Structures are given as structure tokens and as C-alpha cells.
């Protein structure tokens, strides 16, 4: 009920005078992110079915187990094999996922998404938040200020995504292309759009300057800043599309690897996992 002393406003978690379905957006965000995380945990913990023919799941970037290597193996282990002694309770896919995961966790767009959807800080605009001694990002959440370091890691991982996609253009000693190649290529492009549209990146490439016309370098950085701004204005779209595309790639490769569906490609038209070497 409205409290008369506060201009008819209401207090408490979720309390609002809004009459629209304000909760739909946060609920959808919470649902999709939760589903994605559950699927990722399953895929990472499973530890197999992550590659098929010339493809490797983006969850298993730069991962290859020695036991899976064959003469036809495309060789995804860009930095060598993971040691056999690696503890089973901490799958390599979780390690490789944690690196871009930290980038997403500290991302300015995702902060909005999860502060609203998971932590109720606040759940919606003009909607009552979780009652607590709010300190914002001045105390425990101060680590959010190191977002740019997670960006550096995310940028360093981008070439690996392209390398994995390019690997998908060669199989059985012949060039070609398959649906998996297309998906991995799209995944690399979307992740590039997301990573290079980052607010911290936009700041570093030129946003930190006060004068864009003072010398040749600042003129050049202004041009770069403008291009990053174009991506930044679409940061939310890239954030979601790239997140979903990672899962689509994994689902596709996992399904081919498990023999649920065949791969469609130029090497032999329709290839079931048994026909891949």
C-alpha cells in the first residue's frame, strides 16, 4: 500500500507504482543467462564430444587432449597439450571459459543485466531494490574497475577463434567448407564485434583524449574512436548474439560428435561422425 508520507510511493523489494510489465526484461535476461551457464557447466564438465572433424567447440579453445590426436587431427592445441595430471574436477574448458567469462562479468553492459536480473540492484527503473547497505562499486565490487585487464585477455583470445575457424577450411588434405566452419567464422566475427565495442576499449583508443585535433596521433585516434563508438552503440546486441552463437557452435559440434546430426560440408556432402577420421 502507498505510504502517504512519501508522496504515494511504495518501499521494498520489487515495490513500484509502475503498471507496465517491467519485470519481463530482467526475467528474460535471468532466464537466458541461467540456461546458458547451466549448459556451459554441463559442456565443460563433460570433457568429451567437443570436436568433430575439423571443428572444435569454442568452449574448448586451444584445448586438445593427447589421447584424441590422430594423423588427421587438425591440431587445436596452439600452446601444447594440457598435462595429463590436470585435476579432473577442474576441466580445462572451465579455465579457458573463465578468461572471457571475467571479461563478460565486468562488462559495463552485463553489469546492468545482472545487477538488475540477479541482484535486484535495482530490479527495474523506479522499482524497489533489495534492501541493504548499498555501497555500489566502492567496496567489494571495486574490482569492476579492472575491466580493461580482462579486455586485454579477451583481445588476446580473438586470434585463436579465427585460427580455429580457419582450421575448419581444411580437412582430409583438401580445402573445403562445412556448416561448422560457417558457424565458427560467425562466432569469431560476433565475438570481435563484442570485444572491440567494449567501453574500456573505446576509452583507451581515444575517448580518454580531450583534444581530438591537436596532432596527427589524436586525429588518427579520433577516427578509431569513432569506429569503436559504432560498435559500442551496438554493444548489447553483440553481447547477446555472440553469447548465443558460442552455445550454438558448441551444440552443433557436440551433436555432430555424438552422432546425433551429420555435418553438411563440401568434402563429402553429408558426413556423419563415423565418416570423420
Amino acid at each position, binding site marked *: 500500500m502507498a505510504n502517504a508520507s512519501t508522496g504515494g510511493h511504495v518501499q521494498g523489494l520489487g515495490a513500484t507504482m509502475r503498471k507496465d510489465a517491467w519485470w519481463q526484461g530482467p526475467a528474460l535476461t535471468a532466464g537466458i543467462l541461467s540456461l546458458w551457464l547451466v549448459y556451459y557447466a554441463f559442456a565443460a564438465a563433460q570433457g568429451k564430444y567437443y570436436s568433430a572433424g575439423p571443428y572444435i567447440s569454442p568452449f574448448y579453445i586451444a584445448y586438445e587432449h593427447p589421447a584424441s590426436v590422430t594423423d588427421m587431427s587438425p591440431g587445436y592445441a596452439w600452446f601444447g597439450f594440457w598435462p595429463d595430471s590436470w585435476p579432473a574436477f577442474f576441466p580445462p574448458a572451465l579455465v579457458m571459459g573463465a578468461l572471457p567469462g571475467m571479461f563478460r562479468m565486468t562488462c559495463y553492459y552485463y553489469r546492468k543485466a545482472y545487477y538488475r536480473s540477479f541482484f535486484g540492484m535495482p530490479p527495474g527503473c523506479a522499482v524497489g531494490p533489495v534492501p541493504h547497505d548499498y555501497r555500489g*562499486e566502492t567496496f567489494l*565490487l571495486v574490482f569492476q*574497475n579492472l575491466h580493461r585487464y580482462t579486455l586485454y585477455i579477451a583481445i588476446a583470445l580473438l586470434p585463436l577463434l579465427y585460427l580455429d575457424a580457419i582450421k575448419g577450411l581444411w580437412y582430409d588434405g583438401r580445402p573445403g567448407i562445412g556448416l561448422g566452419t560457417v558457424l565458427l567464422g560467425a562466432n569469431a566475427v560476433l565475438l570481435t564485434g563484442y570485444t572491440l565495442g567494449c567501453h574500456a576499449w573505446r576509452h583507451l583508443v581515444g575517448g580518454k583524449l580531450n583534444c581530438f585535433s591537436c596532432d596527427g596521433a589524436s586525429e588518427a585516434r579520433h577516427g578509431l574512436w569513432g569506429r569503436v563508438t559504432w560498435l559500442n552503440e551496438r554493444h548489447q546486441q553483440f553481447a547477446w548474439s555472440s553469447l548465443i552463437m558460442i552455445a550454438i557452435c558448441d551444440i552443433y559440434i557436440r551433436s555432430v560428435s555424438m552422432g546425433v546430426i551429420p555435418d553438411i560440408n563440401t568434402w563429402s556432402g553429408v558426413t556423419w561422425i563415423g565418416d570423420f577420421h
Partner: protein
Amino acid sequence: MSEPAKRKRTLRAWRGDASGGKFEEYTVEVDQGMVVLDLVHRAQRDAEGAGDMACRWNCKAGKCGSCSMEINGKPKLACMTRLGDYAPDEVIQVQPLKTFPIIRDLTTDVSWNYEQNKKIAPFTPPPRPEGDYRMKQKDVDRIQEFRKCIECFLCQDTCHVLRDHDKKAPATQPAGKPPQGFIGPRFMIRVAQLDMHPLDTVDRIPKLKEEWGSGYCNITKCCTEVCPEHINITDNGIIPMKERVVDRFYDPITMLLSKLGGGSKRTVQK
């Protein structure tokens, strides 16, 4: 032929002052194209008991920022909110801004905002050179967006730091303590407007972190959602300022590079 019946709308307005109050309902005739401010004025004119309903307004064109209120729970300008945006039988509920102390009915005391503005050192260019100051359009494109602000304070009203947690920056910051409150999105973009100006000579970044509480903002973007001038407050103002704070206080590499380069060339605001 008989004249078509006039359409009617029910206005549910909060009536009262700091000591208390309640919602009152007024049903009044409306015409096509009316906005919520028209409905309030029509109720003042026609409805019994509504003649003395307090409502601040001025330009009726979305440029003075006076008629800010909460309409069906959302912070909006009454003069820019069309009745046609609502279902024909939907009650229009109006309330004063939640974040600021109530004066009476739909009016609130927003003077805290003006006190925050006074804390921020004004634009301070270097001594005038021979001829005139020179800069290019590309240098001021960014800050011209912030100059569209009409100071309606809807962003301040919807900011949960101020609205729900009541972390308004106090008049004075106790020495040696973490920031005791936040100046709010309106003044984050005021600082951005000054800090990004190529001719400005004042360094406000330490104040922004230590006293004006930039760290309280957790980027939930409600300020951007309610801005009637469509200023991208969060992406273009707040986040760039938070990144400048990171440069100065959190990122060891930029801190080192800044030190090697002799630090900020601007004069730190005391």
C-alpha cells in the same frame, strides 16, 4: 444530430505535503492530442477540489524541465507524455518525484541538485590567446550532447542510489573518509562536459572519486532510459568518467605512465 459525447479521463493525483497526504481522483473531459500536463490543468480548472493542486510547469514544450513527475510510476515530463500513449480507460496516476522532499502535491524541493552543481568548478579556460580560442568541431561534438540537458532531474529521481538508498552526497565530505554519497547522473555528465573540453584547465577527477562518489554508480542505465532529451548519459558520460577515474586510481599501468609523463597538466580542484 446530437453532439458526440466528450471523452473523459480519470486523473489520480497525490495531494498532500511533507506531513502526509493521499491520492484523489478527478474525472474530467479531455480532447484529442492532450498531454498529462493538460489533464492536470483541466482538472485544476474543472474538477471540484482540484483548483489548488500544486504543479510546477513553465514552457510546456519539453525544454524547461519543470513539470517532472511520476506518471503511472515512471519518471516523466508531464508536458511530453501524451494521453494517447495510454489505454482509453486507463487511469492516469501522477505523483511527485520520489527522490526529493515534497513541498506540496506534485512539487518537490530539488535544491539539493543546485547545491551539487555549486561544488563543481566551472569551465576554466586558459588566459585568452592573441585573437581568439580555437578548436575544431570534432573536439566539441561529444560535449554538445551533454549541453542538451534541461535539468529536469528525472535522471536524479530514477537513480536508485539517490532514490532508494538515499545516498545523496552531503554538503561537506568528512576528511579521510570514503565518499559519503553520490552527486547523481546529472552531475556526472556535467563533470564529463567540463572534463572533456579541450580548453578546460581544471582537474576534477580526484573530487569525482573521493567526494562526489562516482563509484556508487553501478551502471543500471535507468538515468539514460528516462532522459527526455535522449542523452546517452551512461555510455557517453558516466562510463567515460569512470574510466578516467580508473586511469588515475586503479590501473597501475596508466598510473605509472602518467607519473612518467609528469601527471595531469590541469590544476586539481581543491
